[in-house]
Protein backbone atom coordinates (compact mmCIF):
# COMPACT_ATOMS: atom_id res chain seq x y z
CA UNK A 1 0.00 0.00 0.00
CA UNK A 2 1.98 2.94 -1.17
CA UNK A 3 1.36 6.08 -3.05
CA UNK A 4 3.42 8.21 -5.27
CA UNK A 5 3.48 11.93 -5.43
CA UNK A 6 3.73 13.09 -9.01
CA UNK A 7 5.64 16.28 -9.31
CA UNK A 8 4.36 18.51 -12.02
CA UNK A 9 6.25 21.33 -13.52
CA UNK A 10 5.39 24.33 -11.42
CA UNK A 11 5.94 26.79 -14.25
CA UNK A 12 3.89 26.42 -17.40
CA UNK A 13 5.85 26.77 -20.70
CA UNK A 14 6.02 30.25 -22.20
CA UNK A 15 3.45 30.98 -24.92
CA UNK A 16 5.95 30.92 -27.81
CA UNK A 17 6.95 27.35 -26.94
CA UNK A 18 3.31 26.23 -27.02
CA UNK A 19 2.70 28.13 -30.23
CA UNK A 20 5.85 26.60 -31.82
CA UNK A 21 4.73 23.09 -30.84
CA UNK A 22 1.33 23.62 -32.41
CA UNK A 23 2.87 24.93 -35.67
CA UNK A 24 5.42 22.11 -35.85
CA UNK A 25 2.65 19.51 -35.28
CA UNK A 26 0.53 20.96 -38.08
CA UNK A 27 3.47 21.24 -40.50
CA UNK A 28 4.79 17.75 -39.81
CA UNK A 29 1.32 16.20 -40.18
CA UNK A 30 0.68 18.03 -43.42
CA UNK A 31 4.12 16.96 -44.69
CA UNK A 32 3.46 13.32 -43.80
CA UNK A 33 0.05 13.40 -45.45
CA UNK A 34 1.40 14.94 -48.64
CA UNK A 35 4.17 12.33 -48.81
CA UNK A 36 1.82 9.38 -48.34
CA UNK A 37 -1.01 10.72 -50.47
CA UNK A 38 0.35 9.58 -53.90
CA UNK A 39 0.80 6.07 -52.49
CA UNK A 40 -2.77 5.91 -51.23
CA UNK A 41 -4.49 7.14 -54.35
CA UNK A 42 -4.45 5.64 -57.82
CA UNK A 43 -2.70 7.76 -60.47
CA UNK A 44 -4.64 10.46 -62.35
CA UNK A 45 -7.32 11.10 -59.73
CA UNK A 46 -8.94 14.50 -59.98
CA UNK A 47 -7.73 17.47 -57.93
CA UNK A 48 -11.04 17.47 -56.01
CA UNK A 49 -10.56 13.87 -54.87
CA UNK A 50 -6.98 14.66 -53.92
CA UNK A 51 -8.12 17.55 -51.75
CA UNK A 52 -10.95 15.60 -50.12
CA UNK A 53 -8.71 12.69 -49.10
CA UNK A 54 -6.03 15.13 -47.96
CA UNK A 55 -8.50 17.06 -45.80
CA UNK A 56 -9.96 13.91 -44.24
CA UNK A 57 -6.55 12.47 -43.43
CA UNK A 58 -5.21 15.72 -42.03
CA UNK A 59 -8.28 16.29 -39.87
CA UNK A 60 -8.38 12.77 -38.52
CA UNK A 61 -4.73 12.89 -37.51
CA UNK A 62 -4.71 16.39 -36.10
CA UNK A 63 -8.03 16.44 -34.25
CA UNK A 64 -7.13 13.88 -31.56
CA UNK A 65 -3.73 15.50 -31.19
CA UNK A 66 -5.31 18.90 -30.71
CA UNK A 67 -7.90 17.47 -28.34
CA UNK A 68 -5.30 15.92 -26.06
CA UNK A 69 -2.69 18.62 -26.36
CA UNK A 70 -4.80 21.80 -26.36
CA UNK A 71 -8.53 21.56 -25.72
CA UNK A 72 -8.42 19.26 -22.70
CA UNK A 73 -5.59 21.04 -20.89
CA UNK A 74 -7.36 24.36 -21.49
CA UNK A 75 -10.60 23.01 -20.06
CA UNK A 76 -8.76 21.52 -17.14
CA UNK A 77 -7.02 24.82 -16.48
CA UNK A 78 -10.34 26.68 -16.59
CA UNK A 79 -11.91 24.17 -14.20
CA UNK A 80 -9.00 24.37 -11.78
CA UNK A 81 -9.09 28.14 -11.88
CA UNK A 82 -12.80 28.18 -11.16
CA UNK A 83 -12.35 25.87 -8.20
CA UNK A 84 -9.43 27.86 -6.92
CA UNK A 85 -11.34 31.14 -7.13
CA UNK A 86 -14.43 29.77 -5.42
CA UNK A 87 -12.28 28.21 -2.66
CA UNK A 88 -10.50 31.50 -2.29
CA UNK A 89 -13.77 33.41 -2.01
CA UNK A 90 -15.21 30.90 0.46
CA UNK A 91 -12.00 31.01 2.52
CA UNK A 92 -12.01 34.80 2.63
CA UNK A 93 -15.64 34.85 3.77
CA UNK A 94 -14.96 32.25 6.45
CA UNK A 95 -12.04 34.26 7.75
CA UNK A 96 -14.01 37.51 7.67
CA UNK A 97 -16.88 35.85 9.52
CA UNK A 98 -14.50 34.55 12.18
CA UNK A 99 -12.76 37.89 12.74
CA UNK A 100 -16.09 39.78 12.72
CA UNK A 101 -17.43 37.36 15.33
CA UNK A 102 -14.32 37.78 17.51
CA UNK A 103 -14.59 41.56 17.23
CA UNK A 104 -18.31 41.70 17.92
CA UNK A 105 -18.71 39.02 20.54
CA UNK A 106 -15.23 38.88 22.04
CA UNK A 107 -13.80 42.38 22.20
CA UNK A 108 -17.27 43.92 21.85
CA UNK A 109 -18.63 41.94 24.78
CA UNK A 110 -15.85 43.13 27.10
CA UNK A 111 -16.28 46.73 25.97
CA UNK A 112 -20.02 46.38 26.53
CA UNK A 113 -19.49 45.29 30.14
CA UNK A 114 -17.14 48.24 30.54
CA UNK A 115 -19.69 50.70 29.15
CA UNK A 116 -22.54 49.33 31.20
CA UNK A 117 -20.40 49.24 34.36
CA UNK A 118 -19.08 52.79 33.93
CA UNK A 119 -22.57 54.12 33.27
CA UNK A 120 -23.90 52.48 36.41
CA UNK A 121 -20.90 53.79 38.33
CA UNK A 122 -21.55 57.33 37.13
CA UNK A 123 -24.98 57.14 38.72
CA UNK A 124 -23.40 56.20 42.06
CA UNK A 125 -20.64 58.81 42.04
CA UNK A 126 -22.35 62.02 43.08
CA UNK A 127 -19.24 64.15 43.57
CA UNK A 128 -18.96 66.61 40.68
CA UNK A 129 -15.41 66.05 39.44
CA UNK A 130 -15.28 62.22 39.77
CA UNK A 131 -18.73 62.02 38.19
CA UNK A 132 -17.57 64.00 35.18
CA UNK A 133 -14.50 61.78 34.78
CA UNK A 134 -16.51 58.58 34.93
CA UNK A 135 -18.93 59.97 32.33
CA UNK A 136 -15.97 60.81 30.08
CA UNK A 137 -14.55 57.31 30.47
CA UNK A 138 -17.94 55.81 29.67
CA UNK A 139 -18.06 57.90 26.51
CA UNK A 140 -14.60 56.70 25.43
CA UNK A 141 -15.57 53.07 26.06
CA UNK A 142 -18.79 53.65 24.12
CA UNK A 143 -16.80 55.00 21.16
CA UNK A 144 -14.44 52.00 21.26
CA UNK A 145 -17.47 49.69 21.33
CA UNK A 146 -19.14 51.31 18.35
CA UNK A 147 -15.80 51.22 16.46
CA UNK A 148 -15.50 47.49 17.12
CA UNK A 149 -19.09 46.94 15.98
CA UNK A 150 -18.50 49.03 12.87
CA UNK A 151 -15.39 47.03 12.02
CA UNK A 152 -17.23 43.76 12.46
CA UNK A 153 -20.06 45.05 10.26
CA UNK A 154 -17.56 46.08 7.59
CA UNK A 155 -15.98 42.64 7.52
CA UNK A 156 -19.20 40.67 7.37
CA UNK A 157 -22.51 41.63 8.95
CA UNK A 158 -23.80 38.96 11.34
CA UNK A 159 -27.26 39.96 10.06
CA UNK A 160 -26.51 38.09 6.84
CA UNK A 161 -26.02 34.82 8.71
CA UNK A 162 -28.69 35.32 11.35
CA UNK A 163 -31.55 37.04 9.51
CA UNK A 164 -30.77 36.56 5.84
CA UNK A 165 -30.12 38.51 2.68
CA UNK A 166 -33.07 40.94 2.71
CA UNK A 167 -32.26 42.24 6.21
CA UNK A 168 -28.54 42.49 5.46
CA UNK A 169 -29.19 44.45 2.26
CA UNK A 170 -31.63 46.76 4.06
CA UNK A 171 -28.95 47.52 6.66
CA UNK A 172 -26.37 48.05 3.91
CA UNK A 173 -28.73 50.50 2.20
CA UNK A 174 -29.38 52.35 5.48
CA UNK A 175 -25.65 52.69 6.09
CA UNK A 176 -24.99 53.98 2.56
CA UNK A 177 -27.90 56.45 2.81
CA UNK A 178 -26.53 57.73 6.13
CA UNK A 179 -22.99 58.25 4.87
CA UNK A 180 -23.47 59.41 1.27
CA UNK A 181 -25.66 62.01 -0.35
CA UNK A 182 -27.74 59.32 -1.91
CA UNK A 183 -31.35 58.24 -1.57
CA UNK A 184 -31.48 54.45 -1.31
CA UNK A 185 -34.68 52.41 -1.48
CA UNK A 186 -35.01 48.67 -1.00
CA UNK A 187 -37.87 46.44 -2.12
CA UNK A 188 -37.59 42.81 -1.11
CA UNK A 189 -41.16 41.77 -0.41
CA UNK A 190 -41.14 38.48 -2.36
CA UNK A 191 -37.94 37.34 -0.66
CA UNK A 192 -39.11 38.04 2.91
CA UNK A 193 -38.82 35.01 5.12
CA UNK A 194 -36.90 32.97 2.55
CA UNK A 195 -33.42 31.72 3.20
CA UNK A 196 -31.04 30.61 0.48
CA UNK A 197 -27.81 28.65 0.37
CA UNK A 198 -24.98 30.41 2.16
CA UNK A 199 -22.96 30.87 -1.08
CA UNK A 200 -25.94 32.42 -2.84
CA UNK A 201 -26.73 34.86 -0.02
CA UNK A 202 -23.08 35.82 0.38
CA UNK A 203 -22.58 36.32 -3.37
CA UNK A 204 -25.71 38.46 -3.70
CA UNK A 205 -24.74 40.55 -0.70
CA UNK A 206 -21.21 41.15 -1.98
CA UNK A 207 -22.52 41.94 -5.47
CA UNK A 208 -24.96 44.46 -4.04
CA UNK A 209 -22.19 45.98 -1.92
CA UNK A 210 -19.92 46.26 -4.97
CA UNK A 211 -22.70 47.72 -7.12
CA UNK A 212 -23.55 50.35 -4.47
CA UNK A 213 -19.87 51.22 -4.19
CA UNK A 214 -19.72 51.74 -7.96
CA UNK A 215 -22.81 53.95 -7.80
CA UNK A 216 -21.28 56.06 -5.02
CA UNK A 217 -17.88 56.36 -6.68
CA UNK A 218 -18.70 56.93 -10.32
CA UNK A 219 -22.35 57.50 -11.13
CA UNK A 220 -23.03 60.96 -9.59
CA UNK A 221 -26.54 59.60 -8.96
CA UNK A 222 -28.95 61.07 -6.39
CA UNK A 223 -31.22 58.01 -6.18
CA UNK A 224 -30.59 54.30 -6.27
CA UNK A 225 -33.24 51.58 -6.09
CA UNK A 226 -32.44 48.06 -4.98
CA UNK A 227 -34.92 45.33 -5.83
CA UNK A 228 -34.49 41.79 -4.61
CA UNK A 229 -37.03 39.32 -5.94
CA UNK A 230 -37.73 35.72 -6.78
CA UNK A 231 -38.20 35.15 -10.50
CA UNK A 232 -39.16 31.52 -11.02
CA UNK A 233 -36.30 29.49 -9.59
CA UNK A 234 -33.93 32.44 -9.78
CA UNK A 235 -33.04 35.04 -7.21
CA UNK A 236 -32.86 38.41 -8.92
CA UNK A 237 -31.11 41.55 -7.77
CA UNK A 238 -31.52 44.84 -9.56
CA UNK A 239 -29.58 47.95 -8.65
CA UNK A 240 -30.62 50.93 -10.72
CA UNK A 241 -29.46 54.53 -10.35
CA UNK A 242 -30.30 57.84 -11.98
CA UNK A 243 -26.67 58.82 -12.52
CA UNK A 244 -24.65 59.70 -15.58
CA UNK A 245 -24.49 56.17 -16.93
CA UNK A 246 -21.47 54.22 -18.09
CA UNK A 247 -20.26 55.32 -21.52
CA UNK A 248 -18.59 52.04 -22.20
CA UNK A 249 -17.85 49.28 -19.78
CA UNK A 250 -14.39 48.89 -21.27
CA UNK A 251 -13.59 52.57 -21.04
CA UNK A 252 -14.89 53.05 -17.53
CA UNK A 253 -12.36 53.88 -14.80
CA UNK A 254 -10.18 50.98 -13.78
CA UNK A 255 -11.54 50.68 -10.27
CA UNK A 256 -15.10 50.56 -11.56
CA UNK A 257 -14.09 48.01 -14.13
CA UNK A 258 -12.49 45.90 -11.41
CA UNK A 259 -15.74 46.06 -9.48
CA UNK A 260 -17.65 44.79 -12.48
CA UNK A 261 -15.11 42.00 -12.99
CA UNK A 262 -15.65 40.93 -9.38
CA UNK A 263 -19.41 40.96 -9.86
CA UNK A 264 -19.20 38.96 -13.08
CA UNK A 265 -16.83 36.45 -11.47
CA UNK A 266 -19.16 35.84 -8.53
CA UNK A 267 -22.19 35.50 -10.79
CA UNK A 268 -20.41 33.09 -13.18
CA UNK A 269 -19.19 30.85 -10.36
CA UNK A 270 -22.79 30.26 -9.26
CA UNK A 271 -24.01 29.74 -12.84
CA UNK A 272 -25.76 33.07 -12.75
CA UNK A 273 -26.21 35.87 -15.20
CA UNK A 274 -25.15 39.51 -15.18
CA UNK A 275 -26.79 42.18 -17.30
CA UNK A 276 -25.82 45.84 -17.36
CA UNK A 277 -28.01 48.33 -19.15
CA UNK A 278 -26.73 51.86 -19.27
CA UNK A 279 -27.72 54.91 -21.25
CA UNK A 280 -25.46 57.94 -21.00
CA UNK A 281 -27.25 60.59 -18.95
CA UNK A 282 -30.03 58.23 -17.96
CA UNK A 283 -28.46 56.06 -15.33
CA UNK A 284 -27.42 52.44 -15.06
CA UNK A 285 -29.27 49.23 -14.27
CA UNK A 286 -27.34 46.25 -13.04
CA UNK A 287 -29.24 42.99 -12.93
CA UNK A 288 -27.92 39.75 -11.49
CA UNK A 289 -29.81 36.46 -11.50
CA UNK A 290 -28.59 33.46 -9.56
CA UNK A 291 -30.18 30.02 -9.27
CA UNK A 292 -32.04 30.33 -5.97
CA UNK A 293 -31.10 27.26 -4.03
CA UNK A 294 -33.25 27.39 -0.92
CA UNK A 295 -32.05 26.32 2.41
CA UNK A 296 -33.91 23.26 3.65
CA UNK A 297 -36.70 24.12 6.09
CA UNK A 298 -35.08 22.32 9.03
CA UNK A 299 -31.77 24.06 8.55
CA UNK A 300 -33.33 27.45 7.92
CA UNK A 301 -31.93 29.52 10.72
CA UNK A 302 -34.99 31.66 11.18
CA UNK A 303 -37.70 30.86 8.73
CA UNK A 304 -40.37 33.06 10.26
CA UNK A 305 -38.39 36.27 10.39
Amino acid at each position, binding site marked *: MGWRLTMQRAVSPPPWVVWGMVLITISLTEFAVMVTLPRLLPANTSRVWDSIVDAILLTSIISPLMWWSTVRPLQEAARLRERFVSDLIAGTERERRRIAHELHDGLG*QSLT*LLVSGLRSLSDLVRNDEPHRRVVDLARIAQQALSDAKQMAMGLRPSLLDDLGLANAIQRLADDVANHEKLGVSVVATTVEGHRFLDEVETAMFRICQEALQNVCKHSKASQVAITLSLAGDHLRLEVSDNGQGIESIRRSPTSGQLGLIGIRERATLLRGQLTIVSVVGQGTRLIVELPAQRQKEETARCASC
Partner: protein
Amino acid sequence: MRVMLIDDHSLVRAGLKQLVAAQSDIVVVAEANRVDGALEMAQKSRAELVVLDLTLPGGASLPFVAVLRRETSAKVLILTMHDDPAYARAALAAGALGYVVKSCPESVLLEALQSVSRGRLFIDLDNDEQTDHLWKTLMQPSISGDTDYSGSKLSSRETEVLRMLGQGLSNLVIAERLELSPKTVATYRARIAEKVGLKTTADFVKYARDMGF
Protein backbone atom coordinates in the same frame (compact mmCIF):
# COMPACT_ATOMS: atom_id res chain seq x y z
CA MET B 1 -40.18 35.85 40.15
CA ARG B 2 -38.11 32.90 38.95
CA VAL B 3 -35.51 33.87 36.32
CA MET B 4 -33.27 31.74 34.13
CA LEU B 5 -30.14 33.21 32.49
CA ILE B 6 -28.82 31.90 29.17
CA ASP B 7 -25.57 33.58 28.11
CA ASP B 8 -22.21 32.11 27.15
CA HIS B 9 -20.26 34.91 28.87
CA SER B 10 -19.83 34.05 32.52
CA LEU B 11 -19.02 37.70 33.30
CA VAL B 12 -22.40 38.77 31.94
CA ARG B 13 -24.18 36.12 33.99
CA ALA B 14 -22.23 37.10 37.09
CA GLY B 15 -23.13 40.75 36.57
CA LEU B 16 -26.78 39.90 36.10
CA LYS B 17 -26.85 37.74 39.21
CA GLN B 18 -25.26 40.51 41.24
CA LEU B 19 -27.83 42.96 39.92
CA VAL B 20 -30.73 40.65 40.69
CA ALA B 21 -29.39 39.74 44.15
CA ALA B 22 -30.29 43.23 45.37
CA GLN B 23 -33.92 42.74 44.30
CA SER B 24 -36.22 41.05 46.76
CA ASP B 25 -38.78 39.89 44.20
CA ILE B 26 -36.41 38.27 41.65
CA VAL B 27 -34.53 34.98 42.05
CA VAL B 28 -32.16 33.36 39.57
CA VAL B 29 -33.19 29.71 39.48
CA ALA B 30 -31.10 28.40 36.58
CA GLU B 31 -28.18 29.29 34.35
CA ALA B 32 -27.00 27.96 31.01
CA ASN B 33 -24.30 28.89 28.54
CA ARG B 34 -25.81 27.25 25.47
CA VAL B 35 -29.13 26.28 23.92
CA ASP B 36 -28.53 22.52 24.24
CA GLY B 37 -30.35 21.29 27.30
CA ALA B 38 -31.57 24.78 28.19
CA LEU B 39 -35.20 23.88 27.50
CA GLU B 40 -35.13 21.00 30.00
CA MET B 41 -33.51 23.27 32.57
CA ALA B 42 -36.16 25.93 32.04
CA GLN B 43 -38.91 23.37 32.49
CA LYS B 44 -37.32 21.72 35.51
CA SER B 45 -36.58 24.99 37.28
CA ARG B 46 -40.08 26.30 36.44
CA ALA B 47 -38.55 29.59 35.26
CA GLU B 48 -41.11 32.31 34.69
CA LEU B 49 -38.76 34.56 32.77
CA VAL B 50 -35.83 33.59 30.55
CA VAL B 51 -33.09 36.13 29.82
CA LEU B 52 -31.58 34.98 26.52
CA ASP B 53 -28.50 36.07 24.57
CA LEU B 54 -28.91 36.00 20.80
CA THR B 55 -25.43 34.74 19.94
CA LEU B 56 -24.64 31.46 21.62
CA PRO B 57 -22.16 28.70 20.79
CA GLY B 58 -23.60 26.72 17.90
CA GLY B 59 -25.28 29.63 16.17
CA ALA B 60 -28.06 32.14 16.62
CA SER B 61 -30.64 31.40 19.29
CA LEU B 62 -33.59 33.13 17.60
CA PRO B 63 -35.36 29.84 16.74
CA PHE B 64 -35.04 28.90 20.41
CA VAL B 65 -37.34 31.80 21.35
CA ALA B 66 -40.20 30.11 19.53
CA VAL B 67 -39.32 26.78 21.17
CA LEU B 68 -39.41 28.35 24.63
CA ARG B 69 -42.74 30.00 23.88
CA ARG B 70 -44.20 26.73 22.64
CA GLU B 71 -42.88 24.40 25.33
CA THR B 72 -42.99 26.60 28.44
CA SER B 73 -45.04 29.44 29.82
CA ALA B 74 -41.91 31.50 30.45
CA LYS B 75 -41.66 35.03 29.12
CA VAL B 76 -38.56 35.80 27.10
CA LEU B 77 -36.32 38.84 27.50
CA ILE B 78 -33.55 39.15 24.91
CA LEU B 79 -30.29 40.63 26.23
CA THR B 80 -27.85 40.99 23.38
CA MET B 81 -24.95 42.84 21.73
CA HIS B 82 -26.99 43.37 18.56
CA ASP B 83 -28.40 46.88 18.35
CA ASP B 84 -29.83 46.54 14.84
CA PRO B 85 -33.64 46.98 14.84
CA ALA B 86 -33.96 44.02 12.45
CA TYR B 87 -32.82 41.68 15.24
CA ALA B 88 -35.33 43.20 17.64
CA ARG B 89 -38.15 42.84 15.10
CA ALA B 90 -37.22 39.21 14.45
CA ALA B 91 -36.98 38.44 18.17
CA LEU B 92 -40.37 40.04 18.94
CA ALA B 93 -41.91 38.25 15.96
CA ALA B 94 -40.54 34.98 17.32
CA GLY B 95 -42.34 35.64 20.60
CA ALA B 96 -39.94 37.54 22.85
CA LEU B 97 -41.57 40.17 25.06
CA GLY B 98 -38.47 42.23 25.77
CA TYR B 99 -35.35 43.31 23.89
CA VAL B 100 -32.48 45.10 25.59
CA VAL B 101 -29.02 45.86 24.25
CA LYS B 102 -26.26 44.91 26.66
CA SER B 103 -24.60 48.31 26.80
CA CYS B 104 -27.68 49.81 28.48
CA PRO B 105 -27.20 50.91 32.10
CA GLU B 106 -28.17 48.40 34.78
CA SER B 107 -31.19 50.49 35.74
CA VAL B 108 -32.66 49.91 32.27
CA LEU B 109 -32.11 46.20 32.59
CA LEU B 110 -33.92 46.13 35.93
CA GLU B 111 -36.79 48.06 34.40
CA ALA B 112 -36.89 45.54 31.55
CA LEU B 113 -37.00 42.59 33.96
CA GLN B 114 -39.85 44.18 35.90
CA SER B 115 -41.77 45.15 32.77
CA VAL B 116 -41.49 41.81 31.00
CA SER B 117 -42.33 39.86 34.13
CA ARG B 118 -45.61 41.82 34.26
CA GLY B 119 -46.28 40.87 30.66
CA ARG B 120 -45.48 44.26 29.18
CA LEU B 121 -43.45 44.80 26.04
CA PHE B 122 -40.05 46.42 26.66
CA ILE B 123 -37.52 47.60 24.06
CA ASP B 124 -34.28 49.52 24.48
CA LEU B 125 -31.73 49.54 21.65
CA ASP B 126 -29.47 51.96 23.56
CA ASN B 127 -30.29 54.50 20.87
CA ASP B 128 -33.37 56.63 21.57
CA GLU B 129 -34.00 57.50 17.94
CA GLN B 130 -33.93 53.89 16.76
CA THR B 131 -35.91 52.64 19.73
CA ASP B 132 -38.63 55.21 19.05
CA HIS B 133 -38.64 54.36 15.36
CA LEU B 134 -39.02 50.66 16.14
CA TRP B 135 -41.93 51.36 18.50
CA LYS B 136 -43.59 53.38 15.79
CA THR B 137 -43.19 50.73 13.10
CA LEU B 138 -44.52 48.12 15.51
CA MET B 139 -47.54 50.18 16.54
CA GLN B 140 -48.42 51.90 13.28
CA PRO B 141 -48.28 49.15 10.73
CA SER B 142 -47.63 50.38 7.20
CA ILE B 143 -50.58 50.75 4.88
CA SER B 144 -49.01 49.35 1.77
CA GLY B 145 -45.78 47.82 0.58
CA ASP B 146 -43.73 51.00 0.57
CA THR B 147 -39.98 50.95 0.09
CA ASP B 148 -39.36 50.51 3.78
CA TYR B 149 -38.71 46.83 4.39
CA SER B 150 -39.92 45.25 7.58
CA GLY B 151 -40.28 41.62 8.48
CA SER B 152 -43.42 41.85 10.57
CA LYS B 153 -45.56 44.74 9.36
CA LEU B 154 -49.30 44.40 9.24
CA SER B 155 -51.56 45.90 6.61
CA SER B 156 -54.20 48.38 7.76
CA ARG B 157 -56.94 45.72 7.42
CA GLU B 158 -54.87 43.24 9.40
CA THR B 159 -54.36 45.87 12.10
CA GLU B 160 -58.09 46.44 12.25
CA VAL B 161 -58.74 42.73 12.63
CA LEU B 162 -56.01 42.47 15.26
CA ARG B 163 -57.56 45.36 17.21
CA MET B 164 -60.94 43.60 17.23
CA LEU B 165 -59.40 40.25 18.12
CA GLY B 166 -57.67 42.10 20.93
CA GLN B 167 -61.08 43.16 22.23
CA GLY B 168 -61.88 39.47 22.48
CA LEU B 169 -64.38 39.49 19.60
CA SER B 170 -64.98 36.27 17.70
CA ASN B 171 -64.27 35.79 13.99
CA LEU B 172 -68.02 35.83 13.29
CA VAL B 173 -68.65 39.17 15.02
CA ILE B 174 -65.62 40.72 13.33
CA ALA B 175 -66.84 39.42 9.97
CA GLU B 176 -70.22 41.10 10.54
CA ARG B 177 -68.74 44.42 11.62
CA LEU B 178 -66.26 44.62 8.74
CA GLU B 179 -68.76 43.19 6.26
CA LEU B 180 -66.44 40.33 5.36
CA SER B 181 -67.00 36.60 5.21
CA PRO B 182 -65.90 34.69 8.33
CA LYS B 183 -63.49 32.81 6.11
CA THR B 184 -61.72 36.04 5.11
CA VAL B 185 -61.43 37.02 8.75
CA ALA B 186 -59.90 33.60 9.49
CA THR B 187 -57.39 34.21 6.70
CA TYR B 188 -56.48 37.63 8.16
CA ARG B 189 -56.12 36.03 11.54
CA ALA B 190 -53.79 33.33 10.22
CA ARG B 191 -51.71 35.94 8.43
CA ILE B 192 -51.42 38.09 11.56
CA ALA B 193 -50.55 35.02 13.60
CA GLU B 194 -47.79 34.18 11.15
CA LYS B 195 -46.41 37.71 10.98
CA VAL B 196 -46.45 38.41 14.70
CA GLY B 197 -46.05 34.88 16.03
CA LEU B 198 -49.34 34.46 17.96
CA LYS B 199 -51.40 31.33 18.51
CA THR B 200 -54.31 31.48 20.90
CA THR B 201 -57.01 34.11 21.35
CA ALA B 202 -55.38 34.92 24.69
CA ASP B 203 -52.16 35.66 22.79
CA PHE B 204 -54.04 38.05 20.53
CA VAL B 205 -55.67 39.83 23.43
CA LYS B 206 -52.40 40.20 25.27
CA TYR B 207 -50.45 41.28 22.19
CA ALA B 208 -53.04 43.87 21.21
CA ARG B 209 -53.09 45.24 24.76
CA ASP B 210 -49.29 45.39 24.95
CA MET B 211 -49.18 47.26 21.68
CA GLY B 212 -51.71 49.75 22.93
CA PHE B 213 -54.48 48.84 20.48
